C-alpha cells in the first residue's frame, strides 16, 4: 500500500495543473481514486461526517452482481458451440471457448466507452463518473455472440455520446445507455441481431475449434424466436438439436440467446445481491415480473390462438431478456422512476408492455428492450403525478 501511495504521490505533480501531463488530470484522478478512497474532508459548513458509501462502491456492486450471469454466459457460448458442431468437450474447454469468445466484447465495450467517458471528463474538467463500469459489462451480455466487434464499437460510441454525454453524463441520461446500444444494433444492423444464425457460434474462436453445424436438425433460433414465428398454435420450442425443452431449461439457461440473458438462475443470484444491498429497487424487479406474469396469463386465457399467446405465462418470465431486463435494466436508478409509488407503476408497465410486444407484434419476438426504453420516457411522467399528488395534499392542508 505504501509502495502504491509512493508511486501515486510521485506521479501526482506531473498530472496536476502546471505539470507536463496536466491534460490527463481527470484520468489520473480517476485512477488515484480507484486505488485510494479520496481523502478530501468535509467543508466548514454542512455535514461533518459522511456515510462510507460512494458511487464507486455502488457501481462495483452491480458489476459483481453481473458476474454469475457473465460466467454462465461464457460457459453457455461454449456449450452451444460444441453442441452445434457435434463434439464433446470438457467443462474447462467449454468455458474457455466461451470466455475467449466473450472477452473481446468486454474489451471493446470498455475501451470505446471509457475512452469517450475519459475524454469528455477531461474536456469538461470533471471527475470521471463510474456509470460506464456497469454499462461496459452490460453491453457484452445483451448482444448475440456472433455480432461483429466493430458493430459493438459503433453502437457503444453512439449510445455513450448521444444517450449520455449530450445530456450531461451519468445521472442526467433519460435512456438506459446499454439498452440504447442494443437498440442501435437492433435497428441499424437487424440481420446481425435476429434470425437463427446469430445466437450460436458455429465457427471457431481465434482459430480454435473451427467447425460448422454438423447436426441435420440444427436450429440456432432462440426459443422465443421459434415460438414467435411458429405457424401452429401450440407453443413448442426446442434446443438447437431439435429436442423439445421447457420451463426448467429456460430457467437454467443452456439455450441459445444473448450472452448473459439465458440463465434466469444466475440472473436472480445477482439480483438478490442487488436487492439485499439496496442498490436496485426490489419494488421494480418484483413489479416487472408481476406485470409480465399477469399479462401473459391474460393472453393465455383470452388471447388469440397463436403459439406465442399460448406460451404459458411462467415461460415468458424465463425466456429471452425478461429476467435480465427486470433485474439489471429496469432497475437503473437514473432512468427508472424515482419515487417509491412510481417504481411500482413503472415496473408493472414494463412487464405488461414487454409481453404485449412479444405477443401482438409479429416482427419482434422480444419485447423487453422496447418496453424498458418506452417506460424510460414515461418514468418522469409517472413521478410527476406522484409528486403532484404530494403538492395537492399540501395545498389541501393549507385550505383546511
Amino acid at each position, binding site marked *: *500500500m505504501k509502495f502504491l501511495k509512493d508511486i501515486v504521490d510521485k506521479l501526482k505533480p506531473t498530472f496536476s495543473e502546471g505539470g507536463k501531463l496536466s491534460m490527463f488530470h481527470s484520468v489520473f484522478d480517476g485512477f488515484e*481514486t*480507484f*486505488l*485510494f*478512497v*479520496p*481523502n*478530501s*474532508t*468535509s*467543508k*466548514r*459548513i*454542512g*455535514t*461533518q*461526517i*459522511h*456515510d*462510507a*458509501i*460512494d*458511487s*464507486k*462502491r*455502488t*457501481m*462495483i*456492486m452491480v458489476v459483481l452482481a453481473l458476474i454469475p450471469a457473465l460466467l454462465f454466459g461464457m460457459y453457455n457460448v461454449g456449450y452451444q458451440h460444441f453442441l452445434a458442431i457435434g463434439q464433446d468437450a470438457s467443462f474447462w474447454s467449454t468455458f474457455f471457448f466461451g470466455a475467449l469468445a466473450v472477452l473481446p466484447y468486454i474489451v471493446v465495450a470498455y475501451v470505446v466507452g471509457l475512452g469517450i467517458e475519459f475524454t469528455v471528463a477531461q474536456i469538461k474538467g470533471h*471527475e470521471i*463518473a463510474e*456509470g460506464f463500469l456497469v454499462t461496459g459489462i452490460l453491453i457484452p451480455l445483451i448482444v448475440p455472440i456472433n455480432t461483429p466487434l466493430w458493430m459493438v464499437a459503433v453502437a457503444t460510441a453512439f449510445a455513450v455520446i448521444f444517450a449520455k454525454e449530450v445530456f*450531461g*453524463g*451519468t*445521472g*442526467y441520461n433519460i435512456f438506459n445507455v446499454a439498452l440504447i446500444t442494443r437498440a442501435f444494433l437492433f435497428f441499424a444492423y437487424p440481420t446481425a441481431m435476429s434470425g437463427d444464425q446469430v445466437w450460436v457460434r458455429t465457427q471457431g474462436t481465434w482459430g480454435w475449434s473451427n467447425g460448422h453445424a454438423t447436426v441435420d436438425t440444427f436450429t440456432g433460433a432462440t426459443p422465443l424466436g421459434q415460438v414467435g414465428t411458429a405457424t401452429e398454435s401450440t407453443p413448442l420450442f426446442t434446443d438447437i438439436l431439435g429436442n423439445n425443452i421447457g420451463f426448467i431449461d429456460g430457467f437454467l439457461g443452456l439455450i441459445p440467446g444473448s450472452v448473459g440473458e439465458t440463465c434466469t438462475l444466475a440472473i436472480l443470484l445477482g439480483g438478490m445481491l442487488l436487492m*439485499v*444491498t*439496496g*442498490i436496485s*429497487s426490489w419494488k421494480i424487479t418484483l413489479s416487472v415480473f408481476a406485470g409480465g406474469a399477469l399479462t401473459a396469463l391474460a393472453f393465455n386465457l383470452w388471447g388469440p390462438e397463436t403459439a406465442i399467446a399460448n406460451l404459458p405465462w411462467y415461460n415468458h418470465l424465463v425466456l429471452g431478456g425478461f429476467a435480465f431486463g427486470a433485474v439489471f435494466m429496469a432497475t437503473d*436508478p*437514473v432512468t*427508472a*422512476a*424515482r*419515487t*417509491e409509488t412510481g*417504481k411500482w407503476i413503472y415496473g408493472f408497465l414494463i412487464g405488461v408492455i414487454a409481453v404485449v410486444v412479444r405477443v401482438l407484434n409479429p416482427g419482434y419476438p422480444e419485447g423487453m428492450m422496447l418496453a424498458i426504453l418506452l417506460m424510460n420516457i414515461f418514468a418522469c411522467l409517472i*413521478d410527476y403525478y*406522484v*409528486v403532484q399528488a*404530494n*403538492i395537492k*395534499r*399540501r*395545498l389541501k392542508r*393549507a385550505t383546511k
Partner: protein
Amino acid sequence: MIQKIKLKRGLDIAINGKAAEVIGSNPQSEIFSVVPDHFAGITPKVVVKEGERVEAGSPVFYNKQCSEMQFVAPVSGEIIAVNRGERRKVLSIDIRADKEQVYKTFEKINLANASADNLKQALLESGLWWCVKQRPYDVIANPAIAPKKVFVSTFDTAPLAPNYEFVAQGKANYLQAAVKAFSIISGKDVEIGLRAGSTSTEFRMLQHAHFTEFEGAHPAGNVGVQIHHIDAVNKGEVVWTINLQDMLIIGKFLCEGIVDMTKVVALTGPEVHEPQYYRVKYGSTASNILRGNIHKEIALRLVCGNVLSGHQINEDEVLSPYTNQITVLEEGADTHELFGWIMPRFDKFSNSNTFLTKILRKVCPKMTFNFDARILGGQRAMIMSGEYEKVLPMDIYVEYLIKAMIAGNIDKMEALGAYEIAPEDVALCEFVCTSKLPLQAIVRKALDNMKSELE
C-alpha cells in the same frame, strides 16, 4: 392523553464519545467577544465605544432593520475593541470581563398580567430575541409577525447530542416561565415535543403547554419534524421555534430580571479524553473547554454543534450562542484507504447494506464508530433514488425539493414544502447521499434566496 407519533424513517448514527452526565470545571475566559455574524440576517449598528464600561445585559449593538432588537454584552467589563473588516463590517466586539460580574437588572415581569406586547418588548430589549427562530426560512423571528404557534422540542436525537433532561435539571421554574410567556405572546399553548418513554417531570408537569410524544430514530427530535406532524407550516403561516436551553435563558431573564447567557454545553466525540458537560457563557472561545481534554497528536476537526448540522470551528473561535454541543473527531486527511470500493471496511458506519457493518449493528446494536471528517467519495450527479426519503420522516419529496432549490424555482420550492424545511432537517440526507451533494448548503442558499424574493 398525550398523542404519540411513531416515526419509522430516520437513522441513529453510532459514533463514539457520548458525554458523561457530569459538569466539568473549566477556566473562565478573560476576554468575551460578541460576533454579529452569529446572528444570521442582522445588520448591526454598534452603540458602544472602545474603553466604555458595560454591564452584563447592556446593549452593544442593535439590528438596523428593526431597531428594537438589541444585542447585549454577555459579561460586565470594559470594551477593549470593536473589530471591523472590509467595508467596515463589524467582526466582533471584545470585552475584558470584570472579576466580579455585575448584571444589569431589568424590571421583573409579572407573568400573571403581562400582555403579549409587553413580553415581546422585554425580550427585544433584553437582547435575547435571537433565541426565537421562525419557520419558514429558519432565521431569527420577525417580531412584527404573530406566530401561529410556538414549538419547543425537549430532546435532541442528533449524534451524541446533549441530554436536555440532564441540562434542564432543577430549572423547571425557568422553563415554566418561558413557556407561559410564549403562550401569552402566541395566544396558544406552547407545543412541546416529548421523547416517548421519558419520565422527566421537568417537562411533563409544564402548564400552558400542549404535549406530543415522538418515538423513533434521529431526526425525531428535530423541531422541524415535530412541527410537520403536529401542525405543519403552510404558505403564509409563521411558527416560532426555540431551543430548550434558550428557553431556560429566557426563563431566567423572566424570573430574575438578568441576562445570563450561560449554557451547559456537551463536549463529545471520539477524540475527547473525557466527554462531559461544561458551563459556557456566550462570547468565550472553544479553547477553554478543550484544554487538556482532547487528543492532540493527530489532526483534529472541531465541530460547533453535532456532526450532522454543526460547522467546523478553530480552537480560538468564539462559540455561537446557539451552541449546545461541541464534537471533536479526527480530520482524516492523511488516511489513505486502499480499494475502498470493494473492501469490507469493518470500521466504517454506513446506512447502506453494501457494508456488513449495517448487519452487524443489528446483531450488536451497541457497536460505535470513530468517524473522521472525510467525505469518502467524489461528488456526482444524483444517481440513487429514494435515499433521502428513507431518513426523513416527513411527507416531503426531498429529492424533488432539492432539485427545485438547485434550479432556483421558487414556485416549485413553495409547492414541495420549502416552508417546512430547515437545513438541519436534510442533514441526515446529506450524510447518506451516495453522490455526496452539499444538501444543507443548497437548502440554506435557497431559503435565503426565497426570503429575499418574497419579502
